[in-house]
């Protein structure tokens, strides 16, 4: 068994099926991926995302440190703002992707919460300390992953549901904002961020209060299976699949998150990425036009020759069609290009497309 969410007992009582993910034992399914997926696209669903890491970075040089730790210009965030960025090594290869929140309730010094992916928290903490010390910066770095739980409430009806459950005015927040809010007697951070393409929030609360926060949202509980189909319909990256320093070393430009790279900031990997903004291979979407289910690792063929590999694939519950993400070279990645995915030895016809596969409604 891996690390356990503070909600593990509640999930077990609710009949959740669990899986190992990033070193954590987490619910993968409550009532079926289709039902859960539809709830989020049509109304609202909630996810336990306590497996996500949380790093506290606080101090006079905290803005300079967050600028070095990830690719976006998070150092310029005002209190109450959030930003998405990549985390790269000296080669410019993605180690992780992260959201940086500047706390709305910081006191004398700038204070941030960085959210690394599941299982990356220890490595991210060590790296932050290393980068801080190498640059001679003054900031405290603390791994708060097991002090803080996180619940995502996502879907078109999520803002109203969260607004009703809290004393804060959540419905008027723009995307990528974060505010303090009391949920009953629990002090929370409520951020208009997510991984589904829908409106909604992510709520950060003390570990011990997670059960109260979870119970406060009366809506469909959703597992990691649904989190995966939702993010895949949006073309969002999954750490370990679309990028991984060992098995899928990719730059942010290859992975399609060049929008989150600000090369005027001094992040680790900036110099290596100077000439890398227009790579040969890029992440694209595939829609299969014949029967078959694309899966991680399946070859992508053009004229019978292997030109790429599927990084993630499924049958989209919204479209009821097979979709995939894959890295393809320039010659084969224009939208509309005919390719094939090799499924158990047989080529299945597909067309290149630009994600998202399903229109985003959160902007």
């Amino acid at each position, binding site marked *: 068994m891996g690390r356990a969410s503070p909600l593990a007992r509640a999930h077990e009582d609710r009949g959740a099926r669990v899986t190992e993910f990033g070193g954590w034992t987490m619910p*993968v*399914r409550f009532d*079926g*991926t*289709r039902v859960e997926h539809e709830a989020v696209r049509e109304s609202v669903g909630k996810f336990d995302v306590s497996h996500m890491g949380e790093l506290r970075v606080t101090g006079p040089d905290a803005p300079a440190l967050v600028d070095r730790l990830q690719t976006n210009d998070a150092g310029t965030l005002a209190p109450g703002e959030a930003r998405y960025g990549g985390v790269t090594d000296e080669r410019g290869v993605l180690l992780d992707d992260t959201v940086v929140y500047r706390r709305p309730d910081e006191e004398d010094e700038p204070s941030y919460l960085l959210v690394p992916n599941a299982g990356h928290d220890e490595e991210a903490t060590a790296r932050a300390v290393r980068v801080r010390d190498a640059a001679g910066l003054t900031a405290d770095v603390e791994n708060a992953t097991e002090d803080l739980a996180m619940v995502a409430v996502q879907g078109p009806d999520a803002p109203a549901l969260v607004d009703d459950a809290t004393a804060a005015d959540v419905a008027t927040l723009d995307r990528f904002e974060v505010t303090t809010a009391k949920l009953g007697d629990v002090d929370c951070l409520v951020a208009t961020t997510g991984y589904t393409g829908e409106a909604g929030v992510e709520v950060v609360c003390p570990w011990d209060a997670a059960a109260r926060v979870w119970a406060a949202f009366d809506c469909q509980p959703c597992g990691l*299976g649904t989190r*995966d*189909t939702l993010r895949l319909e949006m073309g969002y990256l999954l750490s370990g699949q679309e990028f991984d320093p060992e098995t899928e070393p990719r730059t942010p430009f290859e992975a399609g998150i060049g929008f989150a790279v600000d090369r005027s900031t001094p992040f680790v990997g900036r110099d290596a990425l100077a000439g890398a903004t227009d790579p040969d291979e890029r992440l694209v979407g595939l829609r299969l036009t014949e*029967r*078959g*289910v694309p*899966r991680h690792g399946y070859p992508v063929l053009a004229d019978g020759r292997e030109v790429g590999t599927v990084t993630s694939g*499924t*049958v989209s*519950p919204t479209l009821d069609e*097979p979709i995939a993400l894959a890295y393809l070279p320039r010659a084969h990645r224009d939208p509309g290009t005919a390719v094939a995915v090799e499924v*158990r030895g047989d080529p299945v016809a597909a067309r290149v497309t630009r994600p998202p596969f399903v229109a985003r409604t959160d902007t």
Partner: protein
Amino acid sequence: MRFDYPPERRYRPTHEWLTADEPRRVGVTDFAQDELGDVVFVELPDPGDPLTAGDAFGVVESIKAVSDLYAPVDGEVATINESLFDRPELVNDDPYGEGWMIEVRVDAAGELLSADEYREQVE
């Protein structure tokens, strides 16, 4: 008991069932469809293809998982359930009825479990 296993059918430890009477049909159990989750794809052999007990004859895929289907008998494929190509969710909705997969001509049955033996194994 959470799952249903018709007592007159026979079962493989790999979660396929075989009817006792003609037409001899093969499908997957209630337990298997629940383990898989939402079924989105079924790959079946062609009528006339030979079957060998214990060998894979097809594939069933859910949103998350890919599973082989194993033949409970030596024999031949008589008919396949083509409605599963458009409506794979029948495997979840009605695993012993409309979710059947193939009809078989049986030369020899493999080693199969009774409903009680199967239940004991999975629950």
